[in-house]
């Protein structure tokens, strides 16, 4: 009862505290005829008479009971002094920038009660245009990673910053005094002010050199372009040819490119609407995310890559009158067609290559020059800074370290021991360096070998700037004070250089100088960006074409029947820098649909040749991949569309010291990379062997059935020429025979359906612009507190994702051959289909729930009442789209699911507007109902209707290609209404329409810019057998 100190007013009198009230305040019943004032005495027990005993007893018992009823509140600490701009339950948004090496995005950070809980794209940025990749979406969770370093450690034991600074300054001084070499090893640094800080450091210690490398290096491309990385603008391209560049998934700045690419793919069924699309050719070894979206796709082996480029050059040169240079001919399907298209759209063509060989890139530059791409689709004047790494510099550094020539090294957010092919050599050489400092956020593969670990702060805790593109600036501001005792590396470097270590002031001073005043500085911080532009004129790089051809002839072979290794980057995991992020680990890779680990991918023909066979939907076998004597054991996957006689392994896995979510997951592929012309090549054409170990293995895949089984009501697609003739091309329109003749299946109903008088929320998903990049999946996870369930539960097919992206391969089999349809073609066409709760108007889940836990809202949403759910799972069984997710276990605060919901720090990321679901209840997409409610409230406060676009659901918000349109279908001027008005007579369809569940989510037919097959033409609008 001591805690029961709440004070309530007994009435308005007490509040006003009038003198009359004060006089009678001690009397509970005012002027009631109380003979003696025994109220207080009664409670005190000083004057308890027999007849009052029961009263007192009763009061005591009920008071105790009431006190006990109060729910325990854990660690809710009120503000001692409430910050002016923090209102409980109201989110604050701050503009900032995500920077991880050369990966960049301008972001808006949503904070609640001082905690960053979500990052979204900053649409004001003309560079990232509000697009975020899955990795940026997930980055907010890395802030709350409990396994980061919690402060300075020296030789493994934690110390304070002052001690470390003193020792480091002393050691640096010693090294400098004897003229020893100091190196700062870093990934690409986008921040000009950070570079200035490094300059200051170098001024103090002149033997210092900055060594920049990138785990996913494109230094060959930079070399071929005369030392810069040009801006690519795919939006201006009519013909896009990519030779091994996964520009929609992983190559340089994929979200930016995806947005540009989507612009060329967006069509409109209205009369006079755009019906032109770019044509996209992809030549590659593995089935990349980009290849999966291409119109024409062919494969080559890594050993052929250079010759593919020279063949393309010669084909184009012969057409535009350039001089052909002889080279070994290589037979690649569609190459001549691609050349013809490139030439025909000269000036609006672009060729990109993922090769890191400068000679190959030199030929690509020459091709683009022939095609007039410079100045149109390629802007070398506004160069980007995304990759500044130099493989040669890094190799030199490793050699120097091995030779014992380095006196001190500072690893600035760089982990070369893990992510450089020479990592093992570097690890051996590190003890030879007297002073080793790591500023990595954790004691990772490199950090753990360094004496001093002086952890840098997370970007959400930091001040910084960035210059992703020349003349385009972007700013990072802290959205929370440092969680652990970390310090920005810029501050550390300044301190060690003997300067004032206050980087925030340093940055501010630098920018107030440039911008001319504090107000301007505040404004750019508020906007997150400052884009004066550079406008540098640029000439096409002079190319040593003949030398390049000679080099290619030496390094590549037209035909090789040897097994070769391709190393690739996963869209979700990237280089592995965020490997300990459970959201990313559990996010399936767009093409293979596998998560929690990497695997050896081979084509079906190669698998058969190797005696491996993988049945659909079952476990796989473990293989040992041996590359020049080094070997790893991995499960294998049959990957349709991969070049025969190649095996592919993803980087980003096999971390050993990243934390519990990443350690031991998969195997490290970096050591297998080879070197061509001094640059790291993500392939190996040496001695590669693949053999079965005889063990079975499991791969966590969210989708195991690869084909759509010729089900036209699930996925509908057509080719551009057919679409131009008929906007309903490819549409599948099921009909039912009735007494009154044939009727459209969806027109038949026994009841009149729901009426929506106010709003009717809906969504349109354009299959034509969805690249399958999975940004929406992670965004949904973060917005809706979706539990990460771990590898085993994904293997058990129990991932909790509300939003998933179904990926289907085409099959060569006849539509009647249901067995054959289970197997994908050798080089299949691919379609991505985001799948989430369809919010059916005739929802099958709603009728079957025994307890009304899932019901229909007056605004067309299918809503889930978690508290009412008793977990019969009948709704999930009866869901034709299989989008409902069941909490099989308690996924939070349970040791088996040791992810973000199992520690106090990780739980800081929880969105307080969304319930964390308990064990035994069903959940599914709510269409971000919390955002809809918030938006409606906001409008209501201002006494108006919500404006279109004001309410955005997480998936639509995050889509880099704007493939998802969300809005109110009752609002006639909303984007979705306008789109549907056009597309209902064109491409819009509901998945499995004929069962008449009337989904509120429509899909738009996918269109490929291909030559149409004769058979397809006859079926432009398909009339089908009846559906009962």
């Amino acid at each position, binding site marked *: 009862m001591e805690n029961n100190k709440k004070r309530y007013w007994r009435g308005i009198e007490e509040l006003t505290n009038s003198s009359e009230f004060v006089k009678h305040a001690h009397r509970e019943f005012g002027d009631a005829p109380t003979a003696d004032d025994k109220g207080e005495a009664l409670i005190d027990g000083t004057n308890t008479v027999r007849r009052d005993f029961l009263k007192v007893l009763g009061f005591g018992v009920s008071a105790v009971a009431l006190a006990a009823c109060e729910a325990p509140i854990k660690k809710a600490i009120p503000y001692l002094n409430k910050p002016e701009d923090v209102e409980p339950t109201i989110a604050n948004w701050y503009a900032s920038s995500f920077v991880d090496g050369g990966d960049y995005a301008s972001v808006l950070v949503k904070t609640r009660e001082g905690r960053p809980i979500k990052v979204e794209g900053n649409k004001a940025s003309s560079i990232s245009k509000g697009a975020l990749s899955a990795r940026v979406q997930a980055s907010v969770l890395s802030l709350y990673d409990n396994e980061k370093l919690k402060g300075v450690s020296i030789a493994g034991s934690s110390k304070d910053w002052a001690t470390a600074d003193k020792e480091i300054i002393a050691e640096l001084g010693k090294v400098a005094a004897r003229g020893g070499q100091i190196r700062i090893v870093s990934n690409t640094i986008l921040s000009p002010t950070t570079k200035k800080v490094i300059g200051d450091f170098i001024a103090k210690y002149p033997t210092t050199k900055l060594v920049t490398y990138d785990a996913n290096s494109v230094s060959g491309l930079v070399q071929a372009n005369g030392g810069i990385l040009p801006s690519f603008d795919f939006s201006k391209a009519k013909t896009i040819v990519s030779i091994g560049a996964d520009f929609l998934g992983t190559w340089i700045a994929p979200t930016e490119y995806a947005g540009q690419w989507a612009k060329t793919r967006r069509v409109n069924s209205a009369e006079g609407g755009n019906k032109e699309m770019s044509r996209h050719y992809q030549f590659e070894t593995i089935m990349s995310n980009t290849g999966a979206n291409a119109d024409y796709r062919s494969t080559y082996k890594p050993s052929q890559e250079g010759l593919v480029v020279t063949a393309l050059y010669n084909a184009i040169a012969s057409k535009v009158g350039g001089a052909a240079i002889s080279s070994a001919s290589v037979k690649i399907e569609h190459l001549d067609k691609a050349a013809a298209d490139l030439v025909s759209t000269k000036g609006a063509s672009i060729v990109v290559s993922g090769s890191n060989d400068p000679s190959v890139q030199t030929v690509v530059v020459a091709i683009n020059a022939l095609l007039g791409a410079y100045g149109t689709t390629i802007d070398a004047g506004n160069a980007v800074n995304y990759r500044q790494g130099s493989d040669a510099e890094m190799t030199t550094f490793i050699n120097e370290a091995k030779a014992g020539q380095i006196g001190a090294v500072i690893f600035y957010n760089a982990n070369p021991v893990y992510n450089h092919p020479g990592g093992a050599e570097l690890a051996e050489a590190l003890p030879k360096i007297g002073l080793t400092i790591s500023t990595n956020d954790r004691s990772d593969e490199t950090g753990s070998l360094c004496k001093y670990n002086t952890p840098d702060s997370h970007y959400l805790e930091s001040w910084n700037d960035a210059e992703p593109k020349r003349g385009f600036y972007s700013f990072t501001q802290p959205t929370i004070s440092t969680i652990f005792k970390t310090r920005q590396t810029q501050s550390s470097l300044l301190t060690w250089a003997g300067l004032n270590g206050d980087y925030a002031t340093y940055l501010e001073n630098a920018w107030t100088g440039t911008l001319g005043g504090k107000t301007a500085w505040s404004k750019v911080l508020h906007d997150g960006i400052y884009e004066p532009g550079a406008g540098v004129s640029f000439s096409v790089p002079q190319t040593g074409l003949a030398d390049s051809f000679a080099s290619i002839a030496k390094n590549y072979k037209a035909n090789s029947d040897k097994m070769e290794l391709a190393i690739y980057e996963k869209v979700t995991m990237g280089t592995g820098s965020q490997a300990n992020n459970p959201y990313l680990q559990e996010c399936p890779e767009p093409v293979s649909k596998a998560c929690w680990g990497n695997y050896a991918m081979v084509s079906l023909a190669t698998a058969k040749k190797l005696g491996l066979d993988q049945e659909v939907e079952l476990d796989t076998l473990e293989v040992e991949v041996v590359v020049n004597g080094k070997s790893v054991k991995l499960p294998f996957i049959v990957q349709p569309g991969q070049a025969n006689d190649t095996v592919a392994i993803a980087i980003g896995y096999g971390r050993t010291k990243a934390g519990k979510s990443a350690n031991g997951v998969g195997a490290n592929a970096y050591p297998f990379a080879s070197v061509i012309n001094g640059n790291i090549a993500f392939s190996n054409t040496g001695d590669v062997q693949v053999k079965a170990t005889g063990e079975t293995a499991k791969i966590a895949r969210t989708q195991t059935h690869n084909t759509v089984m010729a089900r036209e009501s699930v996925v509908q697609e057509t080719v551009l020429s057919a679409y131009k003739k008929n906007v309903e091309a490819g549409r599948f329109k099921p009909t039912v025979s009735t007494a009154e003749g044939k009727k459209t299946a969806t027109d038949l109903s026994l009841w009149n359906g729901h009426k929506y008088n106010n709003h009717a929320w809906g969504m349109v998903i354009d299959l034509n612009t969805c690249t399958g990049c999975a940004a929406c999946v992670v965004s949904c996870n973060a917005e809706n507190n979706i539990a990460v369930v771990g590898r085993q539960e994904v293997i058990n097919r129990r991932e909790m994702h509300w939003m998933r992206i179904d990926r289907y391969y085409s099959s060569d089999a006849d539509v009647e051959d249901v067995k054959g349809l289970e197997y994908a073609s050798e080089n299949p066409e691919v379609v991505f289909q985001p799948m989430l709760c369809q919010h059916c108007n005739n929802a099958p889940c709603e009728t079957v729930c025994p307890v009304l836990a899932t019901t229909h809202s007056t605004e067309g949403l299918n809503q889930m009442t978690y508290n009412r759910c008793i977990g019969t799972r009948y709704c999930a069984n009866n869901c034709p789209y299989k989008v409902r997710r069941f909490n*099989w276990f308690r996924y939070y605060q349970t040791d088996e699911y040791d992810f973000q919901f199992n520690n106090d720090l990780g739980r800081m990321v929880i969105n307080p507007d969304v319930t964390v679901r308990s064990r035994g209840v069903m959940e599914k997409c709510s269409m971000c109902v919390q955002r809809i409610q918030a938006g409606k409230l906001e409008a209501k406060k201002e006494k108006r209707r919500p404006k279109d676009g004001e309410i955005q659901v997480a998936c639509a918000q995050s889509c880099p290609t704007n493939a998802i349109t969300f809005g109110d279908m009752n609002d006639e001027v909303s984007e979705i209404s306008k789109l549907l008005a056009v597309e209902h007579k064109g491409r819009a369809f509901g998945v499995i329409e004929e069962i008449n569940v009337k989904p509120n989510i429509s899909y738009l037919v996918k269109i490929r810019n291909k030559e149409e097959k004769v058979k397809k033409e006859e079926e432009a609008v398909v009339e089908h057998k009846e559906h009962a």
Partner: protein
Amino acid sequence: MSHVVSPIRETLVSGGKSYHDVTNDICKQVEGEPTKEWKIAFGVSCLVFAYGAYCLGYTWWQGIGVWGLNKTVGWAWDITNFVWWVGIGHAGTLISAVLLLFRQKWRTSINRSAEAMTIFAVLCAASFILAHMGRPWLFHWALPLPNTFGSLWVNFNSPLVWDVFAISTYLSVSLVFWYMGLVPDLATIRDRAQTKASKFWYGAFSLGWNGSAKTWARYEYVSLILAGISTPLVLSVHTIVSMDFATSVIPGWHTTIFPPYFVAGAIFSGFAMVQSLLLITRVVFKLEDYITIEHIEMMNIIITVTGSIVGIAYLTEFFIAWYSGVEYESYCFINRATGPYWWAYWMMMTCNVVSPQLFWFKKIRTSILVSFILSVVVNVGMWFERFVIIVSSLHRDYIPSSWAMFTPTMYDIGDYIFSFGLFFTLFFLFAKFLPVINMFEVKSVMKGVSTNYPYKKKSSGEKSKETVH
């Protein structure tokens, strides 16, 4: 009750038993020390029950994630077991109610244990209703109880709610019917009781039965009324259970044939289960004279008839899947027969359609060993039928991206074992403490009674034991 027995019928009780013999033979089990066979059987049942209870307890503690279910297959062994047990229960009701109304006298020696089996089977089924819930502690929300949530009731559209009503009605009616039938026999045991405890308990449960004509007359009325109430339940319960599937949109479930098909299947499996149990009981309790080859043959004939109905239902489903032209339904059935679960499908076909046809041979349907084996085979088949309907329909439905396989875990198996443990523990308790054969009804159909003393048919129970043989 009329005691006219057609003279051309074979004798229903063999061995020249007298009324006294009947009373002795049957009360012996109740009154004497438990036999060694019973002790062993009961001990094994208890062990199985204990193991199952551990598995079920673990399931409840951890969550049903310990089963092999996944995002695609939300029901598998749980609902398979539920439907299977409910189906088994049907035989008891059919035998005691429908056969009573049709005056099938041969049922008298088997109806008691068949009814007990019904109740225990429904209890087992109910255990899966509870076990399959994500939050079983909130099971009462499925009942339309007054509550403090405002006017929040159950969803009367949901077949699961119909199920709740159907099963609970079925359980209560079956229990009352069974208990009413037990009263005269309990009184017999009471009258013979030697110990105070048994006198008290059997006395209490025999509700003061005095064997007077008026009591008997009332008993007959109540029996008929309860039989009348039970008869529609034979049809309704499994009809409603089938609607769990038939009202859904899932190919393979969304089928109008389900109600009759499920009812036939239920009777089929129920008779097979009764057959299995009786063949054991008659050996363990030496009741060969009461459960004769005649009984076994009759049961086998019913099994063949219902098995054939089920077989026709299977073929009809296939025909309609093809004839309707619905892509998804066609695929569902092709997948059942040739997909990854083909073995379950062919197991079902062999056990349910082919094996009962062997009973066309008199030699087979009168062979005790073969009858026993085939009765078990039929129940295996019927379990697979439900497994096939549930799992093979769910695992590959509309959207191929979600297609998945279901693999049972030790807890799927353990919880199934639990239901066996529960069933047999209860059954052996029943066999020990209650008369497994309806004494007074058996007495009424004894050949000697109706042929030799046609005018003394009013004599019954204890009183008659001196007059006959």
